[in-house]
């Protein structure tokens, strides 16, 4: 499905991503973890075209998409939500999702018709419902709570019917209860939409609970990969990332 081969990217002298090779099977649910500065977000930026890789290949179903622009990569089926929700503050939830539906259907440059185009409403309502935002559909995006803004960000990515969805810390900045609600929603989306989901997460309890497999990045390299159980016991990972605190909490 999504296969990364020898991906590298340096900023100045710093190798943010250093010869990373990873494989994400179709329909898998994978967590990417690693200490701050491990290159997780850079890794997402490379896959989605925000940065151009220095070296390496990004194969989506066999096609190399490395070096394409973000819109081109989106149209190939890789969607993305951001660590800090990137939304459209002056649009309502419904308008924003409808706008994304038009963009996905390549109707976003149409001038002759009125917004929204007929036939776009059903898809928008479906995605809004999937994100659990139906009651807030007429709310201006900027007036949403932090958690709802993150859900909207994910909903915008979902509109594109991505084959691969990348979520950068979907629970960042949320309280404990909100976190689990978010993760439940994400998990439900993954089950319903049958996509390959890759998410960056710092909360180990979430990672170990829902991820099928885990990839650990450290200093731009792949430190370890495996099932949550394998990662939990991986000596390198414990040393480099989870540290004494984690061992203590497991005791």
């Amino acid at each position, binding site marked *: 499905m999504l296969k990364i081969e020898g991906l590298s990217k340096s900023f100045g002298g710093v190798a943010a991503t250093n010869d990373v090779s990873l494989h994400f099977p179709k329909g898998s649910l994978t967590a990417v973890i690693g200490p701050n500065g491990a290159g997780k977000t850079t890794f997402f930026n490379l896959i989605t075209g925000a940065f151009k890789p220095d070296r390496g290949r990004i194969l989506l179903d066999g096609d190399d998409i490395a070096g394409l622009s973000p819109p081109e990569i989106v149209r190939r089926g890789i969607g993305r939500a951001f660590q800090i929700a990137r939304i459209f503050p*002056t*649009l309502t939830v419904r*308008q924003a999702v409808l*706008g994304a539906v038009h963009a996905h259907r390549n109707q*976003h440059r149409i001038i002759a018709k*009125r917004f929204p185009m007929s036939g776009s409403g059903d898809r928008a309502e479906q995605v809004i419902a999937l994100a659990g935002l139906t009651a807030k559909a007429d709310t*201006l995006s900027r007036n949403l709570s932090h958690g709802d803004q993150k859900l909207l960000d994910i909903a*915008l990515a979902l509109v*594109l019917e991505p084959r691969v969805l990348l979520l950068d810390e979907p629970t960042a900045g949320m309280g404990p209860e909100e976190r689990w609600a978010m993760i439940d929603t994400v998990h439900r989306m993954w089950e319903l939409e049958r996509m390959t989901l890759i998410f960056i997460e710092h909360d180990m309890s979430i990672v170990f609970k829902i991820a099928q497999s885990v990839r650990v990045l450290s200093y731009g390299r792949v430190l370890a990969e495996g099932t949550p159980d394998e990662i939990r016991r991986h000596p390198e990972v414990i040393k480099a990332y989870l540290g004494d605190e984690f061992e203590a909490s497991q005791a």
Partner: protein
Amino acid sequence: MMRSSLLRDSLIAIAVFAVLALLPFVVQGKGFTDFMVRLAAFGIFATSLNLLVGYAGMESFGHGLFFGLGCYSFGLIMQTFPVSIPVAFLATVALSIVVGTVVGAICVRLNEIYFAFVTLAFQMLLHSLIIAWTPITGGDQGLTGGIPRPPFLGIRLDDYYHLYLFSTGLLVASLLAMYHIVQSPFGYTLRMIRDNAARAPFLGINVFRVRLMAYVIAGAFGAIGGMIMSLFVSGAFPDFAYWTISGEAIFMIMLGGITVFLGPMVGAVMLLLLNDFVTKMTSHYGLVLGIVILLFALGLRKGLMDFAADLWRDRQTASGPRPDTAAKAVTSAPARAGE
């Protein structure tokens, strides 16, 4: 609220035009029709600038490029070739689209202040060209000798009532067209880019292409404003391509507001009235205008129509019987250039 449709808006536009057509029989005198012809030119021009500033978040300082281009292109074509007014009109729109595409391809990749100043640079390039190319443009004397106005379709633009009808007709039609554009899927894509140009590409939107389209469309309407001006003064002058003309359009949208579609129209009325009254009373026009603009910028911190829209929204909230409906009134209300 009734859903806005092209049919409904067209009917409103026809009704407005009918009223405008009858107005000169009520308000006598050439002063009124003259005012309205100038208002048509500047109203279209300012509204087209607001397509960029208010809807797309592209703060152009050089929109006068198209006003000047429209003036000179139309005037020169009419003086040089034995063509009818509609032909010169369409040729000028076509030329502005070509120029808009070339200039836009260079400018719209730039952000904010860089975009503002490079658009301004291109406008000053046109101005320098007009001043320097005396044999064609008349240099700093402008395009003199009058612009021929052969009658077409029974319209005789020598007649001031005909010119009034022609100009206000173009004004209403242009406003209708631009309103339709901002209500189209393209119009909402503009709002998305204005709100978050970094997010849009990850929804598959090619920001460059959409911005370029917006720039070209706004330029074409800006040129229509210039053509009306050229008919009004029966010539073309370098001032119409000078940076101050862009400044006037910016003042208009500042005074009238950028969040309401008709804000720039209101601003155009205000600035033209200010201009006419203040210049009659004092020679310190710039001083008075500066004070008025400062009052708006520092006092209201927004244009008149923005202020009115916010006030209306607050009243809706205050009079809401239940908290939940009140909340809905706030949240469903359009924000910046919403509806």
